[in-house]
Every structure is written in C-alpha cells, then in structure tokens.
C-alpha cells in the first residue's frame, strides 16, 4: 500500500465503516421486525397449540436431522412445507398423516436412515402438526422451489 495511505486512515475507515453499518443494520432490523414481519409471519394464527408445538420441535432436536425453511441438518426432509406435501394443505388430513407417521417410526429397514421413536402423545403430535402448519403459512418469498422442499 502506498505510503500516503496511513495507519490512521485505515483505522478511521474501520471505525467509521463499522459504526455506519452497525447503525444501518439496526435500522433495517427495526423496519423488518416492526413494520414488515407482522404482515408476513401470520402471527395472529400463533396459537398456544403452535407454541407448544415449537417447544416439542426444540426439545426433541428435530432440527438435528431435518431442515425447516432450509435451515438445520440435511439428513432428512425439509419440513416447512410438509403440511402441503403430506397434508395437501388440509389440517385434518395432515394431523392423521402425522399420527400415522410418528407411530410407524423407526421403520427398522436395514441400511436405511432411521427416525427415532420420540414417544409423543396424541396431543403432542397434534401440537407439532399445528406448529408445522403455521410455519408453512409464513411468507418466505415463495421458497422452496417445488413441493419436495
């Protein structure tokens, strides 16, 4: 670097640049969270059932194999749109699908990936289904590209 470009100029770019972008990021975060998100995340549908479902999702570390909105592990299918994929967008169909699915795990087929039995009650499975249904209705710019997730 040319001698004309001094250390204190470099430091000023660092300090000025980072302060500016931290403030910009905070402003954008404020706009995203306060103005934009309420219209995109269907929070009026965020029932107690959904909240219980989210806790079940967390306490059984579902994200350790699955992805949800593309985030998590990539060992098992995407679940943010499983309500549409397996339930056809119908609450009752999806709940019965979930009950049947959860009770048939693990399959025990040799060599195949196995999903553990989490010993959930019927009500807990319904809560989980409600959480996944709510998640499927978040406006995420239309992702994933197709139904397979």
């Amino acid at each position, binding site marked *: *670097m040319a001698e004309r470009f001094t*250390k204190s100029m*470099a*430091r000023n*770019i*660092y300090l000025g*640049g*980072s302060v500016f*972008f931290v403030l*910009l*990021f905070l402003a*954008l975060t404020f706009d*995203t*969270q306060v103005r*934009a*998100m309420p219209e995109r*995340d269907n929070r009026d549908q*965020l029932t107690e059932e*959904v*909240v219980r479902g*989210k806790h079940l*999702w*967390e*306490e*059984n*570390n*579902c*994200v*350790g*194999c699955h*992805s*949800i*909105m*593309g*985030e*998590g*592990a*990539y*060992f*098992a*299918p995407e679940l943010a749109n499983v309500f549409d994929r397996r339930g056809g967008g119908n609450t009752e169909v999806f709940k019965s699908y979930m009950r049947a699915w959860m009770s048939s795990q*693990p399959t*025990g*087929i*040799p*060599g*195949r*990936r*196995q999903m*553990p039995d989490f010993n959930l009650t019927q009500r807990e499975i319904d809560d989980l289904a409600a959480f996944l249904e709510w998640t499927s209705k*978040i406006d*995420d*710019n239309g*992702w*994933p*590209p*197709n*139904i*397979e*997730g």
Partner: protein
Amino acid sequence: MMKYESQRVAMPYFVFALILFAGQIVFGLILGLQYVVGDFLFPEIPFNVARMVHTNLLIVWLLFGFMGATYYLVPEEAQTELHSPLLAWILFWVFAAAGTLTILGYLFVDYATLADVTMNKLLPTMGREFLEQPTITKIGIAVVVVAFLYNIGMTALKGRKTVVNIVLMTGLVGLAVLWLFSFYNPSNLTQDKYFWWFVVHLWVEGVWELIMGAILAYVLIKLTGVDREVIEKWLYVIIAMALITGIIGTGHHFFWIGPPEYWLWLGSVFSALEPLPFFMMVIFAFNMINRRRRNHPNKAAMLWAMGTTVMAFLGAGVWGFLHTLAPVNWYTHGTQVTAAHGHMAFYGAYVMIVLTIISYAMPIMRGRPYGNSNTAQIVEMWGFWLMTISMVFITLFLTGAGILQVWLQRMPESGDALSFMAGQDQLAVFYWMRFVAGTFFMAGLVIYLGSFFIKGAAAPAEEVRGPATEDA
C-alpha cells in the same frame, strides 16, 4: 523463550482444544457413514446426536483455541504478565468440565430428558441448530467468557496498547455480546431465526474475523519481523472490509425465512463482497512473507499462516460466493452445497488459524524458541497437507452431491422432482467418496498429533535478511 511466564497458561487450552478436535473428527466419520449406512449405530447414537456432538465440539474447541491464543499473545503484546494466571486456570477447569459434561449429556441422556432435567422450560433456549446446549451450559459459557474478558482486559489495560490487542479484544467483546442472543428464543419461529443469526452469522462472518485477523497479524509480526506499523495498517483494512461487507451480508440468511424482499438485494450485494477481506488476508500474508526480514526456523508455523489465508479465501470466500446470490440460493439453500461451504470455511478460517498459533506458540512454551526439530516439523507439515487436501476433496464431493441434489430435487417442477429421500439415494457415490476423504483427514490428524511427540528443538541459526524490528 517466552517473554512472560504467565503466557504458559495457554498450554492447557491448546492441549484440550486438540483433544476435542480429535473427538470432533471421530463423530464426523460416524456422520459420514450414517449418510450411506442409514442405520449405523442406531438407536445408540442417532444422527442428530452425533451431529450435535460434531458441531458443538467444533465450537467449543475453537473457543478453547481462541482463549489459548489470547492468553499467549495479549501479555506479550501488552509487555506485562497476565492479570491473574490463577483465574485463567480456574476458568480452564470450569469450561473443560462444563463442555465435557454437556457432550456426555448429549451422548448418554435422551435429548428431551436432558431438556427436562436442565429445566429448559424455565428459559427455553435448547433445540436450535448449534445452540443445542442446555440453558445452564449457555449461562456457564457466558460467565466463563465474561471472567476471561475481565482477566484479559485488566492485562491489556495496564500495558502497551497495540493494535493487535485492541482488535483481538474488540472481537472477543463482540463474541460475548452476541452470545446473549442465544438466550432470546421467541415463540415466533421467524423472529427466532432472525435473531439466531445474530449469534451464528455475526460470529463467523463478523467478530470472529477480527479474532482471526489479530492472531494472524501477531504471528506474521513474529515470523517475518516486518515493521508492525505496516502489519497493523493491513489489519485495520482487513477488518474494515470484514465488517463493512459482513454486517449487512447477514441478509443472505434472510432470503427464505420470512423477512421482506429488500433483503434479497441487500444480502446478495453485500455478501458477494464478503470474499474481499479473505482475499486481502491472502495478499497480506504472502506480501509480509516476501518482505520478511528474517527466515524464522519454524517453517511449519509459516506454512499454517499461509495455508489458513488461502483456505479461508477458498472456503469462506469462493464457496460462499458460489451460492450467495439470491437467484442461485433459491435452488441451493439447505442442500449439500451449504454443507460443502460450511466444512471448508470453518476448516480454512478457524481451525487453521488456531493450528497456526498452536504451531507457533507450543514449541516456545515447550522450551524450543526456534520451533520443533526438523523431523517434527516435517511430520507436522505432512499432517497439514493431508488434512488440507482431504478437506478440499470433502468439499468437492459435497459440492458434487449438492449440484446433483439441486438438479434432481430442486430444479424440476412439482410432480417431476425426486423426493428428498429418493434424491439422497442417487447421491450415495458422492457420500462414499466424502467418507473416504474423511478417513484421510483422520489419518492427517493422527500424523499431526503424532508430531507433538517427536523430541528435539530446531537449531537457532537464523539467516537475518535485514534489521528485524522485534525479536521472535
């Protein structure tokens, strides 16, 4: 010799970091095998448990490495003894015990039971990717980091205030502050995800780059003898670029998790610039080494210092750029392309910078001021090449898997696209090759660790190319 006796407290941190590193790779191999032999170790160690152990061990050993690096370099930069070596030792044991107990908890207690017995209900923070630790462990990490910062801060404040110390401290304070977001877990999944990235992205594509830059600058000052004014100027420019691009670059994670569409533009543009600081690190390291005023006999440390910049640029920079533009990420988000990038970026930037400072500092702490014996260095460099080349292949195979996955599962219309599991079957050949590359990585690690057991010190002969401004 070490300039300050208290620098020696870095040693247990480095040793424990390397032990956990070995554990991380063992679980990596288990995971790699489970990708193709689905029921391997089921139900004893399900995939999610092995993955949690693999990723959490990585995070914890890198933190041990950062702490060891800090304890080693801050006293020397500040030209004073560490404020409290006793506190550093106490924190070592607290952190080691908490980390070990948490990993054992993952392995031997069912996760839902672990959540129950650690009273996750009181302050639910568990069950989110990389933040799986019980809340009590998270509090423990916060306490250890705060006490660590106190110890280091008191040391830095009473001594010489160098740019390396200031930047390192800034990075570590940022690490601590952002960790607080791990305690924020709203019931609204989109909000949860948005602030989850305040820990994950703003750590690895933000403040950790400050830590990496500071450690790299310190090692280059020591190895090359180049005037620190020059090195400090580079350091400022690099971290300026890291934060200018990386903060708004967080937006590349906001494309498909709920936030509004302007993030598609902001995230794409700024994260496309995120390779810049890593590219500058390459130029910086090679430039300083070309302008070196001495030929330091620790060739292995020099190799790590060059290697970390190149691999970080490839892994974080190039492989990040490959899928960071929104129209590309639309297809690649959450596929094996992401896994490919994650592996090489973490290895190149953070594993290798920790191994760089270990390679430089460990011999000195073991009474070998000019580095290990020639034989030991050659063995260490074999470890370097085996691990690094294996990681390149792991990344290439995962990238191949990811591209095929996108082709089969993401690109076709609904109805024509393969289901996730049907697609996975088609990727098996890539997963097998990745597993084989993983075993070579393990072999490289064994050789690397073996180099620590070779006795002897390097000869003190040092060809001086010009007046060095500071002693090694």
